[in-house]
């Protein structure tokens, strides 16, 4: 499995040994982020770092455990209730004139979100690379719930993240928005290179 080096800036103390040891210049960047296009995954920088700030992460993450329908339902029911409590606490905090109640409600808002996140992480949305996460994003982009939905952000996600648990067969596509024809490689999410359309806006040719 191919790995690449990433640097944790919270741990980095700028000893810069990574700069010295990397044979490919991947650590020699202006923004402190290791250049993934140059990194070959040799791990020399991670071994050299005196702060333990560099980790080797897999390029492709393993798929998440499959969930039964019963577990999915039970998780989503709880997550629904917890996020309803979160929304109520947020409203109570903003409306409360009492300082103690306002702080307690803010804590319950934050706590409920953390619990709901943990639930949905287990409810099949753990990895940004999962087909669940990408299909959900794609479905929202195809049929935005309202006009102010941040479509640009959804397009950005779909163009930057490659799915880890579904093999796209690859092939040629025609965009039904701008009529551009293009090809996508196997394993790559097809996105129109001209107008960034995706999902049902593309037809295979």
């Amino acid at each position, binding site marked *: 499995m191919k790995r690449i080096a990433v*640097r*944790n800036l919270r741990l980095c103390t700028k000893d810069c040994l990574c700069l010295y040891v990397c044979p490919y210049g991947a650590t020699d960047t202006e923004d402190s982020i290791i250049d993934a296009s140059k990194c070959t995954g040799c791990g020399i920088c991670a071994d050299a770092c005196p702060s333990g700030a560099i980790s080797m992460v897999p390029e492709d993450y393993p798929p998440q*455990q499959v*969930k*039964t*329908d*019963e*577990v*999915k*339902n*039970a*998780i*989503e*029911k*709880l*997550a629904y*209730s*917890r*996020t*309803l*409590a*979160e*929304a*109520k606490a*947020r*409203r*109570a905090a903003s409306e409360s004139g009492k300082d*103690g*109640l306002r*702080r*307690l*409600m*803010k*804590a*319950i808002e*934050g*706590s*409920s*979100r*953390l*619990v*709901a*996140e*943990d*639930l*949905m*992480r*287990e409810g099949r*949305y*753990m990895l*940004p690379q999962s087909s669940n996460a990408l299909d*959900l994003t794609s*479905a929202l982009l195809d049929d935005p*719930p309202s006009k*102010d939905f*941040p479509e640009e*952000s*959804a397009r*950005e996600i779909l163009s*930057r993240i490659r799915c880890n648990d579904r093999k796209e067969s690859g092939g040629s596509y025609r965009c039904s928005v701008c009529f551009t024809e293009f090809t996508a490689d196997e394993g790559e999410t097809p996105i129109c290179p001209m107008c960034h359309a995706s999902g049902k806006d593309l037809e295979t040719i």
Partner: protein
Amino acid sequence: MKYICSVCGYVYDEEAEKIPFASLPDDWVCPMCRAPKNLFVPEESEAREPADEPQEAEEYHDSRKLSPGVLAAIFSNLARGAEKQYRAKEAEAFTAIAAYFTRHSDSGDSSSPEAIRALLSDDLSRGYPDLRKKAAAAGDRGAARVLVWGEKVTRMASSLLERYEKEGEAFLAGTSVWLCTVCGFIYIGDNPPGICPVCKVPSWKFTRIE
């Protein structure tokens, strides 16, 4: 006889403490997590596990009907996932979608402390036991894990609301409210606990609610 704190697992051993549990004052709280006395359970009753009964097959409901609130949690969690992988641009994009759904989330009719506590009580009496049963039946250890912290955190939040309903502003005057940023445990005190009584991370993972 021993009594176990249902939030953090602290054991009150009557033999070692020399004071019967029942004689402790009503405002006595757990020395670890400050859970009230009524969240302690006698040791024996704790081991009681619901028996596995055959489950009726249940169909998965339509996931396209997820509420804006749940979608907000899914996307803020994906933002965390992207951040952990050092994908700053993707994290930003997920955060923007999460913020959109947070803005559109519905708080229903009442947002009183009583209404929120009713929701939490329902989770504790039905939601969590239901998930525990389903996770055990499916042999799903991940889902079983998620309950362990969530249930304790919810129990604490519910008991703090109950205390606020009884004592009002005096309960929180002149002291701080702390939130564990990993599991969501809420702690009331001048300083955060040394480690989180629920998920055991160090005190610097706590944030003070301003």
